[in-house]
């Protein structure tokens, strides 16, 4: 399937580059609807791979790459079932999203996240699954999960640890603060900085360069330099489910869902 238009995202293949555009109001939240279409996307990799050198993941929405997991849906789903049944539902979602992230992480072509605006939680985890992040200088990155009483659950910590030093990982995790693109570039999270509104153009230009190299060599290099931290990813799912059964989580989610705060990602 070389092109697709769903309810939350679309993709189009052209000249050995596939562009995936997240476009789900209001802020590209990753809930069951986007997860199902991300699964459709990674299922198409077998068809796309032989003719694809690069995949660019970008956002079609203003001021946001992705605000992360759909917390309103998570709360609504969890509150609708008995507390003892909540971990099973969460675990099923996490298993599916991990499968998607792992497939993107190991894609047999180069993956670039072209990020503008807010890239938070699950949005950052999606970007981290990619090989490179090209960021608009107005982009901001954060892991705000601890404010809700859990940890990033889409593979964030293992992938951040794989790529970056502990000082930055712990700062991001323990404060929940957002960091700007310049800082993210300085610590090695962002590969290239783009001017305002230029991230996608620069990602395309970078993709055009990458397509010049031999596919087998490129895939071998990727496997060599980007091992997937499978054990830590499994452990993350277990820890998330352990934390999720605590009453603190439902209280925090309820507060978040009802909040009109302009900084809802901070406690």
């Amino acid at each position, binding site marked *: 399937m070389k092109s697709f238009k769903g309810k939350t995202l679309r993709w189009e293949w052209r000249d050995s580059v596939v562009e995936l555009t997240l476009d789900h109001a209001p802020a590209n939240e990753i809930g069951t609807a986007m997860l199902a279409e991300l699964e459709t996307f990674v299922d198409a990799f077998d068809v796309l791979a032989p003719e694809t050198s690069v995949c660019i993941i970008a956002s079609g929405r203003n*001021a946001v790459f992705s605000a992360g997991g759909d917390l309103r849906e998570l709360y609504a789903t969890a509150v609708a079932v008995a507390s003892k049944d909540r971990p099973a539902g969460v675990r099923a979602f996490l298993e599916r999203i991990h499968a998607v992230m792992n497939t993107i992480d190991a894609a047999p072509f180069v993956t670039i996240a072209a990020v503008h605006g807010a890239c938070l939680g699950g949005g950052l985890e999606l970007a981290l699954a990619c090989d490179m992040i090209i960021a608009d*200088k107005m*982009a*901001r990155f954060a892991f705000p999960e601890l404010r809700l009483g859990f940890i990033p659950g889409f593979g964030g910590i293992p992938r951040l640890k794989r790529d970056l030093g502990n000082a930055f990982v712990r700062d991001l995790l323990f404060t*929940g603060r957002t960091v700007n693109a*310049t800082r993210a570039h300085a610590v090695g999270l962002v590969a290239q900085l783009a001017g305002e509104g230029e991230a996608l153009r620069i990602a395309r230009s970078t993709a055009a360069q990458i397509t010049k190299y031999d596919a087998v060599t490129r895939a071998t290099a990727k496997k060599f330099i980007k091992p997937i931290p499978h054990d830590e990813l499994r452990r993350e799912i277990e820890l998330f489910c352990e934390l999720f059964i605590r009453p603190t989580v439902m209280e925090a989610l309820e507060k978040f869902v009802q909040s009109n*705060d302009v900084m809802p990602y901070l406690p």
Partner: protein
Amino acid sequence: MRTLEQTTQEVLSLAAQHFQLAAGTLAPEDDFFKKLGIDSLQTLEMLSRIENHFGIELPDYEVQGVSDFKTLAERIQSRL
């Protein structure tokens, strides 16, 4: 080194530019959430605009609860 007054004026000018308001529309004591009606994504944009302009990092928790330009400028000043 900028004075607090210079920093305040630069913040007002940045905000006016970002939200496409005429110069002089905003005052140091204005509550920017009420005056500009900004949402969470716009707050993050404004934070980036400020950090990029002043070449600083301003952690969100340091500006949490701040709603007027004068106090915001004081927080920025402490990072210059």
